[in-house]
């Protein structure tokens, strides 16, 4: 009888201890969630001529933060700042973020011109900025142009080089028409492309059009019949589609090879064309199946612009989390230091993430897609 009572008492005590332990663990988690709280910005072209891509970037940054909060029990809030694809507006949003003491880092800016306009503002404010789709125009692997600006993609010059190499082999281009839209990133692409085309002994000729251009008929008429490829470095995919229509109308067989600005299956789907990408297609990375499913359910379809935004948001969230784990409260300086020393073994992009001396993605690659019946098929990559 005594033994039974003793056993029952023991069970009660063990049960009580288990409850206390569970409660303590839960309280600890809640406490960490409460302490690891931070606010970050997202400078993104949510409206304007590239709003389709900008919206995707914003959605994926939000998704990245939501997933990180859920998995790591953090409490990070993302505030969007719409720069409308206008560098002046990028600078304005950067100033707003810089003057908001709650914001400790930002995703974006998304464009090269945006980085050039806001890079100094962000760096002066010690605000870590991780761009999902751009690098400073004059970035090279040894110079960190803006000390707080990082990028999860390869520089534009890499894209120009990779495109020219692909035009040489396997495409064996005989003559290339190169057209830019006078934006910084566009000129950076084409400058590198032309240098590599020269090295590959491929003749080329050039044109430069305004971003406001709406009629490409005359431009298409300047494309000579012996031109087999047109490298189109426009920022808006719809403009590339218009140029393709103009070529088609004139019965020209020139194949479009688009810079990553044309990479949008919904707006540029000219069969037979090639398009560069600064990121792989998430659909083709098996480890991303769950994210692809979640994103498809939420956004129906998406391009290569989403993945890097998710990655950029994840880099910042990881940095904030690391600061919290070290017992500090996240602020601009400690988050910036953590972002600079990012070393993620895996990422949504199917590769490790760390930054080189210039703030660019270490060992970054650019990707080549071939459009077949409206579908983007990855056919090559290079660095």
């Amino acid at each position, binding site marked *: 009888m005594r033994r039974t009572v003793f056993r029952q008492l023991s069970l009660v005590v063990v049960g009580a201890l288990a409850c206390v332990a569970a409660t303590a663990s839960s309280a600890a988690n809640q406490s960490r969630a409460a302490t690891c709280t931070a606010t970050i910005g997202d400078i993104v072209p949510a*409206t304007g001529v590239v709003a389709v891509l900008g919206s995707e970037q914003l959605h994926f940054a939000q998704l990245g933060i939501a997933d990180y909060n859920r998995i790591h029990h953090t409490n990070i809030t993302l505030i969007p700042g719409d720069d409308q694809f206008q560098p002046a507006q990028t600078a304005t949003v950067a100033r707003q973020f810089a003057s908001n003491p709650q914001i400790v880092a930002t995703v974006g800016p998304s464009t090269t011109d945006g980085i050039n306009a806001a890079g100094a503002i962000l760096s002066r404010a010690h605000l870590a900025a991780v761009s999902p789709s751009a690098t400073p125009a004059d970035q090279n692997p040894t110079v960190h142009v803006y000390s707080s600006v990082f990028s999860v993609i390869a520089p534009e010059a890499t894209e120009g080089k990779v495109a020219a190499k692909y035009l040489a082999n396997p495409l064996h281009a005989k003559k290339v028409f190169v057209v830019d839209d006078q934006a910084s990133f566009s000129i950076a692409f084409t400058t590198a492309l032309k240098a590599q085309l020269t090295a590959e002994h491929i003749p080329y000729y050039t044109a430069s059009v*305004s971003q406001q*251009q709406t*009629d490409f008929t005359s*431009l298409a*008429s300047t494309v000579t019949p012996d031109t087999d490829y047109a490298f189109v470095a426009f920022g808006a995919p719809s403009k590339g589609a218009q140029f393709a229509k103009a070529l088609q*109308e004139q*019965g020209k067989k020139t194949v479009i090879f688009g810079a990553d600005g044309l990479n949008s299956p919904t707006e540029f789907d000219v069969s037979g064309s090639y398009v560069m990408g600064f990121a792989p297609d998430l659909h083709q990375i098996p480890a991303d199946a769950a994210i692809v499913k979640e994103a498809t359910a939420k956004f129906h379809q998406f391009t290569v612009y989403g993945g890097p935004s998710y990655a950029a948001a994840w880099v910042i969230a990881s940095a904030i989390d690391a600061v919290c784990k070290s017992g500090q409260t996240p602020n601009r300086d400690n988050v910036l230091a953590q972002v600079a020393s990012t070393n993620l073994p895996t990422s949504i992009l199917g590769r490790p993430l760390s930054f080189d001396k210039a703030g660019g993605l270490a060992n970054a690659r650019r990707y080549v897609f071939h459009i077949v019946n409206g579908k983007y098929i990855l056919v090559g990559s290079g660095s």
Partner: protein
Amino acid sequence: MQFFFEQVVAGLTVGAIYALLGLGFSLMFGVLRLLNLAHGDVFMVGAFIGYYVLTAFGGPDRLVVPVAVLLLLMLLAAGLGAGLLGLSIERFAFRPLRDAPRTSGLIASLGVSFILEYLVLLIFTANVRSYSASDFVSFSTGIQIGGLHIWLMRILVVAFALSLWVAVRLVIERTDLGNAIRAVAFDREAAAMMGINVNRTISIAFFVSSAVAGMTGVMFGLLFSQVWFQMGFTATLKGLTAAVIGGIGNLSGAVLGGFLIGLAESFTTGYISATYQDLIVFAILIVMMIVRPRGLLGRADLVKV
């Protein structure tokens, strides 16, 4: 030589669009002495209306009506929708400011422009819409002159632009309504004293110019395929330039100015460089304002002394 005529065709077709936009600017300026900076956005709304009519009838690759009927419906719907929009703009944005300094009207039109742009953004999102007219009128349909092939849609657009210009001119010059519009343009107070309903006349002028802008939006979509919420900005710049070069207030001048700008753009791109296209067009505008401030066909104002 074929290259030269390719530039002529390209210049005339894009010029037809500028001409009709310039026509609208001139008509509104004539009756109200107002540069309506929202005119390009009315053009954009017309382009969107045309797109949704196209979609309602099956879309470019699955049309359920004959092409001619579709084009007619697109133009009518865009003309009516844009015309009514123009009426509303005049009634609610410009009429209350009619006796205010001219800059008030100008600023109001700028405000209306942004409101229209962002309303379309909110309602239809920023996605670029594609007419894909080549899916229902193939590029191979058209006329062949030597080595030069002209797509049927280009011929239709130029023909339609010229028809609209003739129609508007006939209305202005040969009808009572036209007399009323000209009277209001000449002297609003005197016209009112002669029994002309000034409000009604101005409203009709706005309806007509906005309807023309809406139909021009459809023609733009048919020719250049893509329509988006910010397309009105460039349209405003080019239409206004056409009107000023031709002589603002003069309908034939606006049409002439439009075609000249179109040709200047295409020849610059074809023979010099696309880089300098806008530079040359706006240089022409500046030279014109210095050398002949009243425009090519504009008449000097009579000043009471």
